[in-house]
Each structure stands twice: as C-alpha cells, then as structure tokens.
C-alpha cells in the first residue's frame, strides 16, 4: 500500500468522485417550476467529461506523491483540468439538451458540477499556499484560471445554462446592484472608522471604559441582522418625518440609510476590538524604551506602536469588511438594493439560478477581499 502524503488532496478527490457518482451533473427541466431530470457526468459530452475525470484521477494519484514545487504545479494543472472540463462539459451538455427541449426549458448546474468546481478551487488554493509561490506566480496562476473561464464565456459556451441566462437577462441591473452593494459596504466601513477610531482611542486611554464599551458593542453584535434591520425601520422613519432635511437627503425608514446604519453598528465591535488589542498588546517595555531613549509621542506612535499594532488592525478590518459584504446581502430586504436583490427575487420567483446570480458574486467578493487582506497582513507581519 503506497503511503499517503497528502490527506487533504486525497479527501478532496474522494469528495469529487463521490459527487460525480452520486449527484447529477446537469438538471434539465422543461420549465422553471417542473422538477426536471438529473443527468450524470457520464452522459455529458465525452471529451470534456473525460478531461474532468482525468484531472480528478490525477489529484487522487498526486496525493500519494511527496510534496515538491513540481507537485504543486501538477496539482494546479490537474485541478484546472477538472474546473475547465466541468465548465465546458456543462456548457456543451446544456447546448445539446436545450436544442431538443422547449424554449422555456432550463438547464441548471447539479451537485456533481458544484462538487467538482469546489474541489478544483480548493485544490488550487491549497497547492498555491503550500507551493510557497511568490506574488507574481500567484497572480499569474489566478489570471490563467480566470482567463480560461472568460474565454469560454466569451465564446458563448455557457449561453444555454440557465444561470448564464439569468445573468444575461439581468446584466444591466447586475452592474448597478453590484456597485450598490460595494457602496453599502464602503459607506458602512467609512462610518465605522469615523466612529470606531475615536472610540478606540477612548477605550485605550480610559481602561475603565474598555469593558463597558466592548460589552455594549458585543450586545449589538448578537442581534440577528434581520432583526436589527427591522428594528431600525420605525425610529428611522419617525426621524425622517420629524426632520425634513434628513428626508431631503434620502434618509428614510427603508432604503440604504438604515442599512448603512445597521452595517456600521455591526462593524464597530470587530473594529474597536482589533484596534484595542492591537495597541494594548504592544509590549510595555518597548513603549517604555522608546520614550526613554528620546522618542517624542508622535514619533513613538508612528514608528513603534503603529507598525507593531498593524497586523491586529488589518485583521480587524478584514473581519469587518467580509462581514459587511455578507450582511449587506440581507439589506435588500429593507429596500437598500445590492446583490441581495437577486437572492430574494430568486427565492420569491422560485428561480434558484437567479439566487445564484446574487449569491455567487457575494462569495467571490468575500474571497477577493480576504485574499487582499491576507496579502496586506503578510506585508504588515513581514518583520514581526
């Protein structure tokens, strides 16, 4: 029995195989409401299906190999084969099925596809992390994977998939809602910083206030997001009724204003806690030594305390941003717009592919933000 060198990879490839054998690859329904028929990968166009399966077998075999730089490349290649194979397979398969079906028919991606795609992406992320690649190598790997996807999309490979159809139908609105989503998140982080930074200074200066403020923010954090959005509607509409100038600014019981307020409140705890731990964990001796050899307070802050607290600050900001991206989806419920619009529209119309048009970009956004912050964190920790 050969020795398993990479349990993660073996688990991933097993998961992929299980997905292929037990789940449908493509679901074909005559219309949106009908249940439809699940087609396995084995009935997909053979070239693409074979590519995906070859990649999967490659991953399984690689889990028995010793980890090396070459190994990382091979893993990435095998995973890319799975990803591209299943993407192209799904597209072409949908085209074949749609030709024979009625115009209202829908071909949606099944569990086997999602399993394969997730396995491929996880394997790539894992291999890139272990391969200890430089920034340029990571960027080019990411670009190559994305390029494959966009080339296929441009060639119209996905046009028959109902997910792509939903996206294309909503293309104009999608861009608007995407920017709205980003706007909500950006505004919330802006206001959270405006409130959070002075609050952090207070908490750091007055240790007595620390417990009180952090506990208060902790209570805010435990309120479920939908409840907080709902609770804000009444006071905010009252406020805008009383103060016409607020109304003229577009501040209302519903819409973006209460959403930004709620997102800001949620952001405060992780932000203040990050700032608080960051600065209070700078060793006393180090601050003391800086003062004693003649650093003024400003220089001490900029050259000693800030760089030492930076990793915690960046971590805090990362949590805040990712959390806000997620919570902002719920804001659609109170009319604030954003990617959540598609999710709730999709749920209402029983169009699961429309839900994905909203949900997938939220996931991608969160991952991108996470990646960016990981890089920033790496920079901040460089010398620590």
């Amino acid at each position, binding site marked *: 029995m050969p020795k398993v060198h990479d349990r993660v990879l073996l688990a991933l490839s097993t998961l992929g195989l299980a997905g292929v054998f037990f789940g449908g690859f493509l679901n074909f329904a005559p219309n949106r409401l009908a249940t439809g028929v699940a087609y396995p990968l084995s009935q997909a166009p053979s070239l693409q299906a074979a590519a995906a399966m070859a990649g999967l077998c490659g991953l399984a075999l690689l889990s028995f190999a010793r980890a090396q730089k070459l190994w990382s490349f091979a893993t990435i290649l095998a995973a890319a084969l799975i990803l591209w194979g299943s993407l192209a397979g799904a597209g072409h398969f949908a085209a074949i099925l749609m030709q024979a079906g009625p115009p209202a028919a829908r071909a949606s991606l099944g569990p086997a596809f999602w399993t394969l795609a997730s396995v491929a992406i996880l394997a790539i992320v894992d291999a890139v992390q272990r391969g200890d690649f430089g920034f340029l190598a990571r960027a080019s790997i990411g670009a190559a994977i994305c390029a494959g996807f966009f080339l296929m999309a441009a060639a119209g490979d996905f046009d028959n998939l109902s997910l792509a159809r939903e996206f294309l139908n909503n293309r104009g609105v999608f861009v608007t809602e995407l920017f709205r989503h980003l706007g909500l998140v950006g505004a919330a982080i802006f206001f959270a910083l405006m409130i959070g930074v002075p609050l952090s200074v207070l908490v750091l200066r007055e240790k007595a206030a620390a417990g009180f403020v952090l506990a208060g923010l902790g209570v805010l954090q435990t309120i479920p997001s939908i409840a907080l959005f709902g609770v804000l509607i009444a006071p905010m509409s009252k406020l805008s009724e009383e103060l016409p100038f607020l109304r003229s600014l577009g501040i209302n019981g519903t819409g973006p204003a209460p959403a930004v307020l709620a997102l800001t409140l949620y952001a405060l705890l992780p932000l203040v806690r990050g700032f608080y731990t960051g600065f209070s964990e700078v060793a006393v001796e180090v601050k003391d030594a800086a003062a004693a050899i003649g650093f003024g307070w400003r220089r001490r802050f900029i050259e000693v305390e800030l760089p*030492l607290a930076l990793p915690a600050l960046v971590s805090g900001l990362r949590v805040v941003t990712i959390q806000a991206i997620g919570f902002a989806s719920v804001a659609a419920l109170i009319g604030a717009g954003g990617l959540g619009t598609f999710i709730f529209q999709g749920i209402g119309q029983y169009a699961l592919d429309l839900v994905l048009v909203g949900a997938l970009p939220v996931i991608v956004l969160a991952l991108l933000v996470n990646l960016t912050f990981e890089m920033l964190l790496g920079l901040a920790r460089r010398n620590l």
Partner: protein
Amino acid sequence: MIELCNVSKDFGPTPAVSDFSLKIESGAFFVLIGPSGCGKSTVLRMINAMIVPDKGHIEVRGENIRAMEPEKLRRGIGYVIQSAGLFPHWTAADNILAVPHLLKWSPSKCAARLDALVTMVGIEAALLERYPKQLSGGQQQRIGVARALAADPDIILMDEPFAALDPVSRVALQEELRGIHARSGKTIVFVTHDMDEALRLATGMAVMNNGRLIQAGTPASILLAPADDFVRDFLGGESLQLRLLDLVPVRKLMKPGNARATGTIAAEASLKAALNLMLARRCASLGVEGERGARLGEIHLSDIIARRDAS
C-alpha cells in the same frame, strides 16, 4: 554630575521615594541597591525625567532637568532595561542606531559608529541583520547595551539589565560593562538587587529601603561599617566578611618570599579566591604570581585573618 536634592515621589497613598538626596560624581559606576519595591527604579527613572518628582529637584551636568525638554535630555542619556526593550520590527543594527537616527547623524557617521560599537560590546557582525526574536537573551541585551552607548552619551542608566540572563551570559556582560566603563570613563547609574553584581561592578553605591536612602559610599566602606541592621542583613549577614574579602586583591597583603607552596594565585585575584584555594588545597600559604607567571611573593592565611582595613 548627577545630583538629586530632597526628591520625593508618591504613587497613590504610599510614598515611592521620600526626601532622597544623592550626588553621583562624574565617571562613577554607581549602583543603587535595595529590595524589590524600595524605590531604586523610581530614582533611576527620575534622572531621565521618565518620572517627574513631586518635590525636590534634580540636576544633570549642573542643569535642572525640569528646565530641559525631556526628549532632548533622554537622547543624551543612555538607557538599558531588564528585557532589553528592543523594537521587534527593527533589525539589531537599526535598534542600535535608534538614537543616532533621532539625532539625524549622517549615514557614514552611523556606519562608523556601528562598527565601533560592535567591537566594543562584543556583537558578532552576522547578528546585525537579525530581528530581536531571532536573538538569545544575552545577545539581545548586548544589542540593548550597544543602543544605550550608540550616541556616545556621558551618562548611562541601567535598570536591572542583567537580571533575566543566565549566569554565564550575566557574568560575561558584567565583565564587558566593567571594561567599557574603565575605558570610557562614562558615568553609569545601575540598579540591581543582586549584591554580588553590585560589589563586582560598583565604584560607589547607595543602599535603599522603603523609598529612603539608608547608606551611601564606596562598596568597601559600606561593607566595613554597615549603617544599621537592615544594611548588614542586606549585605548578607554571615557572609559579609567573605564579601569584603572579595573586594581586596591579593597584591595588597602579599609579602616577599619564595618558599615552596602547594599552589599559586594571581596578584590581581581577590582574597576570597585565595582563601578558597587555600581551603581546597588544605594549606595556609600560597605563592603569588604576576601577569606572566613570574613569582612575586607569597600570601599567608594568618595575614588574611589578621587583616585590618585592607582597602
């Protein structure tokens, strides 16, 4: 050089330092000693204005420090603390050159100074590009000492700098520091609670208890005439006489003579070392040798016992 006049400081209800007066001469290796919490660190930190006294005044180089800008004062006084307090995000070299950078020295002057310091404090050049966490405790403290010496201040304050080190590194750094003091003639104010360390290094010392100065003088004068029972106990009670022997070199009690001896000892070694060797060899006299092993004379147990104030 440094003068504290009737200085008092309270932290809350209990006085940390009360009515403390002390004069430290230029070029002294002055040790402040006392039990934990006796106020010796507070006194030290008042000299560079890290703590401002409630009453009294402090003069450094004949100038009242209250009239000086604290940052400027501190840049002219080296400072070393127990844990070294190095900046973890700076390399050893950057840490050493912290004050020269503050004083905006030119790069070439900094580089030359770094070279000189590395030799002076005994730092391997390979360590200079490392970060503090990559260094051992002893290496970190050498960097800390080099940082204090960097801008060539005439005064250096040290707050239990070697307390956290292993015995081997501690003795090595003590020797290094003694050499630096002897060669440079800097004024060093050194806080410790370790009597052996104090006696090994001090040219002058002050014993403190409960925020007050109990006795000040040379190590020998304090050992010979402890002011009260507290000082006697703190000096080590039973081993007080042995400690006194530690201060006197064999040279002082040496007599001419060339008799065959069971052992020989260096003229600069302490009487304590001589006594120790006599006990080990079970003999009552030793030959005394000079630096190159030349016979200088001999030393007798009876002379050590009969010794009056040999210092």
